């Protein structure tokens, strides 16, 4: 193509320089519009613009009086201006040989006066122009010319700023990724440390139950204390990394608040020095049962009370709890932990909640600790939408006060049924676990329960044993070589078509992990390091599914029967259609949900509702309705996730029941 415009010698580099700024075809920008207005005011002209010239067009970043976004380069006045190093000023185009016959002079924009300043990059390329244009002849004075050049420099500065910001953004992203990598490294390391530690503590406990002489018992107790302390530190680090990565879940389950407080009190009472009086004051109006995270409250209390006891050599440590507000659905509780200990200096009060800080460096030497405790406490309280404050005076004592709001429980807590292992009879259990120490530990515990245990070192071996022998129950570690816990469960459920109860055992306790376990078809979940009672309870639950009472699902086919007018074949067809379609739709819905694809989720949830209604699955239909509603609103919440999970598990149950019909 024969271009009818002059081309600068450094055209290629010039174009490359222009491209670097990523300015072409961007949206309007105030900074540039203001500069254009300034040009129009300064020169008193009706037309002004800031434009950039690429291979074949002049594109206007900002303009007044032009009304188009670009013009071909070969009819642009500025094609000449970018050839210059200084401002081009044409006072009367009619007298200018180059321009007098230009279509933009004889017609078009009727250009009579033109002043254009090349926009020159710091490395010397003219990538565009800043122009003032009028329909009458004009001559700029020296001040106006200077002003134009200054504005042109500002435009370039603005461009540079944009590029720098983009670079900074990119750097920030890299930095964020690094932080994420560090967090996941810390989380993984803590996990790796916890696994052997779990074995150390478990075996020490077993050893402590054997016959020992006095010296041995003393040694064992030391190992126990050291192990538990180490576990606390590792847990601190793991908690922090979970908080950082947003992976820490806050439970919302009914629990007995008074019992929790008394439990924490009893636990710490034993650590109290003789000269210290340790009190627990509970407000008479305090509710028994609230809905919230018991474990985290316990963690907060143990941490704060532990600190107070540690730093108080005489006097008293008092824990008091009061209901300060009650609304229709909530209780607002005030917890105070007050001591007469060493106190905290005024100028340290603001930093004690920061990470790795203790009030005095010497504190660490005298009292130990990681310096993470208060930071975790603060973050745990804030994650529960609460707040914490501290009052203190050196050598007089400290008071930590935190406020937490708990939902009211709907029903009274049902008294837990006394549990004995005898009514389970003699169970044959298969353990899939790769860690030898954990294997031994589980074996002793299971044998203590009076059950038999076979061990598979990985999922593959587990499947083999399962196909050769009869088992009542599988204990499944999640992280194993060859086939992990998820894959193995998937195989057992879908390839072997076995409904043998499977209990997941994991040290991760991350958000979503529990859901994932249920999703692949496991029946229960026991976090490691496991407590014997928790494991036994899980075994009991999965062995007597009827104990789950409320959860036993019944599929009511009366509606379908009415539709089928008593035709068994049609009824069967519809059931098969449900089995074929609904799990697939659920899977699609989950995928769309995880991709934040509101539109697809809405459509699927809507469609599924009709199917669920026919099978009179009212609760699941309601779930779908909520999901549809939230998808319509364009925002998923944790409630949506709950509903998606309930829907998922419900569908699995229903399909199982339908298949057995």
């Amino acid at each position, binding site marked *: 193509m024969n271009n009818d415009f002059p081309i600068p010698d450094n055209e290629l580099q010039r174009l490359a320089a222009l491209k670097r700024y990523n300015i072409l075809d961007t949206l309007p920008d105030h900074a540039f519009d203001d500069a254009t207005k300034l040009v129009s005011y300064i020169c008193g002209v009706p037309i002004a613009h800031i434009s950039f010239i690429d291979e074949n067009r002049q594109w206007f970043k900002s303009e007044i009086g032009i009304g188009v976004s670009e013009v071909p380069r070969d009819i642009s006045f500025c094609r000449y201006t970018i050839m210059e190093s200084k401002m081009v000023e044409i006072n009367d185009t009619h007298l200018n040989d180059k321009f007098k016959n230009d279509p933009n002079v004889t017609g078009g924009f009727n250009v009579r006066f033109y002043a254009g300043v090349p926009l020159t990059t710091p490395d010397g390329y003219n990538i565009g122009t800043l122009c003032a244009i009028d329909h009458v002849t004009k001559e700029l004075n020296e001040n106006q010319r200077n002003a134009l050049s200054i504005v042109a420099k500002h435009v370039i500065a603005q461009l540079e700023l944009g590029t720098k910001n983009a670079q900074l953004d990119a750097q920030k992203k890299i930095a964020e990724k690094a932080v994420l990598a560090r967090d996941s490294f810390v989380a993984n390391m803590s996990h790796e440390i916890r696994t052997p530690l779990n074995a150390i503590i478990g075996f020490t406990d077993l050893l402590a139950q054997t016959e020992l002489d006095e010296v041995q018992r003393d040694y064992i107790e030391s190992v126990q204390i050291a192990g538990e302390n180490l576990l606390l530190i590792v847990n601190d680090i793991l908690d922090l990394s979970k908080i950082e990565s947003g992976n820490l879940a806050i439970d919302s389950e009914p629990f007995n608040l008074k019992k929790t407080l008394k439990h924490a009190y009893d636990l710490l009472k034993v650590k109290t020095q003789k000269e210290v009086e340790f009190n627990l004051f509970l407000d008479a109006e305090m509710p028994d049962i609230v809905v919230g995270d018991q474990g985290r409250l316990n963690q907060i209390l143990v941490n704060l009370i532990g600190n107070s006891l540690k730093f108080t050599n005489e006097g008293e440590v008092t824990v008091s709890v009061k209901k300060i507000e009650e609304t229709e659905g909530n209780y607002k509780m005030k917890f105070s932990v007050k001591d007469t200990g060493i106190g905290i200096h005024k100028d340290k009060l603001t930093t004690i909640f920061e990470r790795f800080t203790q009030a005095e460096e010497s504190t660490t030497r005298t009292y130990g600790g990681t310096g993470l405790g208060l930071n975790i406490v603060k973050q745990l309280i804030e994650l529960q939408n609460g707040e914490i404050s501290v009052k203190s005076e050196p050598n007089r004592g400290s008071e930590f006060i935190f406020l937490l709001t708990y939902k009211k429980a709907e029903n009274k807590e049902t008294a837990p049924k006394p549990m004995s292992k005898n009514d389970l009879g003699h169970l044959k259990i298969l353990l899939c676990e790769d860690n030898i120490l954990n294997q031994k530990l589980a074996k002793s515990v299971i044998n203590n329960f009076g059950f038999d245990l076979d061990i598979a070192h990985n999922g593959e071996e587990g499947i083999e044993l399962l196909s050769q022998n009869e088992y009542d129950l599988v204990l499944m570690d999640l992280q194993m070589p060859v086939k992990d816990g998820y894959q193995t469960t998937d195989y057992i459920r879908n390839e072997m078509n076995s409904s043998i109860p499977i209990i997941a055992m994991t040290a991760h306790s991350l958000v979503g992990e529990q859901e994932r376990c249920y999703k692949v078809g496991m029946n229960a979940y026991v976090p490691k390091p496991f407590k014997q009672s928790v494991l036994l309870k899980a075994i009991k639950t999965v062995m007597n599914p009827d104990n789950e009472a409320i959860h036993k699902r019944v599929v009511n086919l009366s509606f379908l029967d*009415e539709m089928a007018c008593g035709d068994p074949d049609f009824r069967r067809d519809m059931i098969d259609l449900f089995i074929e*379609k609904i799990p697939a739709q659920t899977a699609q819905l989950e995928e769309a949900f995880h991709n934040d694809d509101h539109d697809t989720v809405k459509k699927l949830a809507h*469609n599924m509702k009709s199917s669920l*209604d026919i099978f009179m699955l009212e609760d699941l239909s309601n779930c779908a309705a909520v999901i549809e509603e939230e998808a319509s609103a364009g925002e998923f919440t944790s409630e949506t996730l709950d509903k998606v999970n309930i829907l998922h598990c419900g569908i699995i149950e229903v399909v199982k029941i339908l298949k057995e019909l």
Partner: protein
Amino acid sequence: MRIILAEDNDILRKSLSFFLESKGFSVDQFSDGEEALHAIETNNYDLILTDINMPGKSGMEITQHVRQHINSDTPIIILTSSGVEQTELDSFDIGANEFIAKPVSPAVLLVRINKLLNKRF
């Protein structure tokens, strides 16, 4: 009696269709609104039973088209799960004869269909 049924949920469509056929109707079923509308244009149905939310054309659009472009007074029953009063009013407004909220009771549906067909003949 020929009924056209437009409903995109397979299970519901097949069930309703089976139910109505058991009651002696002949039912043409469609899961896409556009295809349903095409069938309405080329066939003579005694009654139109349509879901409101459908791919292709919605139940509202079908109703509007039947009343305004085909100028037909074939009875139309709209099925919806919205439970919103305005939707109900809107569907009457554009010319639907009946409105049934999901989950649809087959017995109720049958009564309404018979009522509409009897009135007509």
